[in-house]
């Protein structure tokens, strides 16, 4: 599964950081998210899917390999 974020949509709500902190972060000086693992391991799938669902900006895209 590949994870990407549309930075034109991301407003930095950061629900993804709360749901999957191993995959997403907001750097201290930033207002938008950074993907830490674009290809997260299978055990993180549920957390990453929750992150995508919880994004109010619908900015997270998940693509199956």
């Amino acid at each position, binding site marked *: 599964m590949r994870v990407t974020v549309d930075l034109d949509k991301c407003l930095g709500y950061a629900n993804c950081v709360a749901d999957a902190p191993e995959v997403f972060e907001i750097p201290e000086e*930033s207002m938008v998210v950074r993907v830490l693992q674009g290809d997260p391991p299978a055990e993180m799938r549920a957390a990453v899917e929750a992150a995508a669902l919880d994004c109010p900006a619908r900015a997270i895209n998940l693509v199956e390999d």
Partner: protein
Amino acid sequence: MLTHANNELLTRTGPGTPMGDLFRRYWIPALLAEELPEDDCPPVRVKLLSERMIAFRDSDGRYGLIDEFCAHRGASLWFGRNEEGGLRCAYHGFKFDVTGQCIEVPSEPEGSTFCTRVKLTAYPLVKIGEVLWTYMGPPEHQPPVPEYEFVTVPEEQSYTSKRWQECNWLQALEGGIDSSHVSFLHSSGLRDDPLFKGSKGNEYNLKDLRPHFEVVENEGGLFVAARRNADDGHYYWRVTPWVMPTFTMVPPRADHPVHGHFWIPIDDENCWVFTFDYHPTRALTAAERQAMIDGHGVHCEYVPGTYRPLANKDNDYLMDREGQKRGDSFSGVKGIAIQDASVQESMGPIVDRTKERLVATDAGIMKARHMLRNAVLALRDGGAVPPGVDPAHHRVRSFAIVLPREQPFTEVTDEVAVARPGVAHVSV
């Protein structure tokens, strides 16, 4: 959510802070004209953007806003004598005019010119409408004076109050651009308040608790639009303009006066809420004005002789648990202004935004934070004039409208979101 660094950046407004520098590019409300009611009246302590100052009105009716502390040895000029064209320190008689210039040092020998080289920090203070406005930034960047409609309509059409709120300005402002809370926190006001009730829009507000938000940037700030279901293939839109950095205007209801706010930092943990109500095309009725004075609508009751709300954090905002249970109000706190103050102050002096879990209805808040930060950095790094400085950006109006479902609200903003003298506002 904001990182700690960005939360600090947007909430600190003292001298030398980036957000403080941004605020110092705008005219901001400093006090109400009623606080300096006549020539040579008592001076008033004013703290804005963490700077302590004294406002006074001299013998010729000129307004001044100067450093609170005497240039001599730092005594407060609040104890001073306002007489014969200046404010005289009660300690040794140094006298200052409205520009902060020392005009007399009585202990100096005759013919001394010492006083000409003594000057206090001073800012312009001008009366527009019933508000005294100041500009605390670099004189070379002073913009034209404000043109918000509530201060440009005739006096009988407008009313302004202010209240002390005990929290940082930004969390108070963010309440003003989050209209999704109205259906919960203020639901009783929509039914009962004399300045709110009787609007068809209230029914839509109370029926649809899941508004869809659309936020659109404009030259001076944002339009924050809340869309709710109306009748037969229509939507009810409530559109709140936010003008940078801290002006919002609540969408109107029926033919009631329309209202809004400025949240002005006193320091980083307190702010003034300047609250206005006006009607664009008619005088306020005696009943409307009295209701505002009595604390209805978005105004409040006060501790006598102060601008502190009567219901405040020291008395738990006079919370009425029985009334909450009965449904007199959603939160048990009486009055729209105090309902807002109670929840916003409860978040702490400066809310920790690193812990927020936000939802789609917070889009206006998020976009405003982005715009504020972008403007702060553009000013700091390149001296860019921020949005909302140009008086053309002030001539906005909120509106409430029912549109066919297929029609975007942005199709009507050019027509109805602009203040036009003598033209009624658009309301439901």
